[in-house]
């Protein structure tokens, strides 16, 4: 089957522009970040940071410097609060399973929302099958969690509350501070975790101001390399390891530290934060240009998630009615615009995006949804091109639907 891919790729030849907007699922790494990483593969710091030789000490120094930078951007008290993991999937697994292990004598209840990413939802389901009780807080039509329900859900048995600061699909900026106050008021011992992969570098986010216990961040979502993420663990908060082996500089994750990726993550963080205000303003301008360019000019479309300041600076999620999402992503790809869809068409299971269903979108609305994220590296011209391609692509796919009634 995979030989087919060559032909598929050939069909993309001669594109006049290519715009990659699928930052949710992977990202391009800018040259500055790649350049920063390269020496760490074979020129310096390629040793194991816990060993007593020069390349090892170089690695130790490099990892600590990188931790220090990220700790500063996050607002940590010490650099030890930054724990590198191979990504946000691993960090979130660590949060749920690791607190279940460390807190099991205090209670068996875990609270999450219904729109968390699968690396939280599926781990929660696993724990639910193994003696823990997981409560999922509902959200409103824009993806804001019901704080009354949160209050009701937390009690003396609750060991962990895990919520996203920004929803990964629809960009809803949750009121983390308010949620945390409610939770700690009900049970001061409950660990409060915030999934901040879509907040870090995109909205103001400071772990000390918020006073959260745990926070997950991800490298590729800020245009760093894939395969690296981090978990902030507030000093004194206990999370158990879920993997065992040789422990080195990273107390929560065994194995040899991946110094080049850690360097790339730190470099991507620097680039995101050195002109933070400017970057955010830029992303917001492109985001709104994209939203306004589609909502105003294409019929039968619906914005998923909130508008304006309640929405993350980079997120665009729009449902195109009478338009199946997978077909649309292929049509867009053939025209050099790379996005993803909440359609169920890539799986036999008929349920589309759980986030869109949770905010009350009908299945047909979810099937026609397109998720796009803009970055500081995108330009006005990129968005102009996307706005030129999308209406044409939607028109063609709707032409195949023809006279059928899609409800």
């Amino acid at each position: 089957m995979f030989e087919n891919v060559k032909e598929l790729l050939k069909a993309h030849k001669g594109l006049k522009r290519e715009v990659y907007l699928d930052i949710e699922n992977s990202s391009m790494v800018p040259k500055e970040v790649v350049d920063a990483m390269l020496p760490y593969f074979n020129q310096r710091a390629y040793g194991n940071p816990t060993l007593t030789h020069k390349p090892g000490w170089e690695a130790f120094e490099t990892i600590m410097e990188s931790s220090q930078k990220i700790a500063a951007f996050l607002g940590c008290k010490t650099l030890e609060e930054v724990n590198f993991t191979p990504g946000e999937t691993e960090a979130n697994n660590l949060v749920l399973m690791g607190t279940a292990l460390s807190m099991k004598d205090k209670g068996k209840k875990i609270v999450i929302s219904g729109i968390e990413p699968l690396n939280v939802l599926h781990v929660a389901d696993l724990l639910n099958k193994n003696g823990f009780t997981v409560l999922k807080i509902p959200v409103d039509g824009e993806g804001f969690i019901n704080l009354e329900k949160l209050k009701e859900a937390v009690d003396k048995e609750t060991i962990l509350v895990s919520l996203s600061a920004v929803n990964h699909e629809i960009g809803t900026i949750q009121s983390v501070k308010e949620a945390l106050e409610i939770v700690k008021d009900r049970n001061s011992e409950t660990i409060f975790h915030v999934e901040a992969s879509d907040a870090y570098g995109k909205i103001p986010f400071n772990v000390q101001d918020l006073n959260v216990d745990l926070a997950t961040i991800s490298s590729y979502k800020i245009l760093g390399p894939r395969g690296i993420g981090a978990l902030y663990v507030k000093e004194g908060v206990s999370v158990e390891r879920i993997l065992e082996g040789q422990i080195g500089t990273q107390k929560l994750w065994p194995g040899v530290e991946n110094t080049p990726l850690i360097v790339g993550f730190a470099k991507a963080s620097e680039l995101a934060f050195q002109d933070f205000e400017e970057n955010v303003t830029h992303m917001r301008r492109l985001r709104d240009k994209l939203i306004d360019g589609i909502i105003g000019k294409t019929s039968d479309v619906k914005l998923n998630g909130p508008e304006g300041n309640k929405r993350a600076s980079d997120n665009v999620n729009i449902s195109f009615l009478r338009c199946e999402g997978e077909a649309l992503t292929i049509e867009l790809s053939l025209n050099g615009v790379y996005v993803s869809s909440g359609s169920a068409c890539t799986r036999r299971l008929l349920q589309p995006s759980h986030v869109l269903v949770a905010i009350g979108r009908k299945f047909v609305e979810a099937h026609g949804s397109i998720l796009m994220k803009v970055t500081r590296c995108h330009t006005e011209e990129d968005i102009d091109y996307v706005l030129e391609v999308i209406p044409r692509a939607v028109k063609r796919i709707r032409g195949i639907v023809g006279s059928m009634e899609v409800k």
Partner: protein
Amino acid sequence: MSRAPLPYNPKILELFRNPKNLGKMEDATVTAVAGNPSCGDMIIFYLKISDEDVIEKASFESYGCAANIATSSVVTEMIKGMKLEDAWKISWKSVVEAVGGLPSVKFHCGILAVGALRRAIRAYCKNKGVSPTWLSKEQTFEEKQALEEEELAEILSRRMKVEEEK
């Protein structure tokens, strides 16, 4: 919930870009729908059938993925000029073959296309008041699968409504 890579073959890509026999047929003898938009998968077939039970023209419309569009298109090509009896014998496997193979998660697209075709033929025979020997009394595998998908969509959307009301 898992995702699978979908390296569609050149034939599917070509049919996706330039589907054949696309569009509503005003003078169709019979039409049949299969699938449900809630599954992200629905097609309609239009057939023009002669008095001698030969399919003179076939066309389709589709709300679905590239595989859905390609399999529907290929079925309308396969059956053009065919006697109803021969069209009835087309299986989903032969449709998958005709599009040069499908990723296994997309087999249901081929199944749905044949389901819609058989429904159209069944409806035609019923309207005509005939029951030829080759027309099985029992629902065939493809028809049952189409029905199952539609029922599943109903169940899921009902469940969603119940959750909304909570």
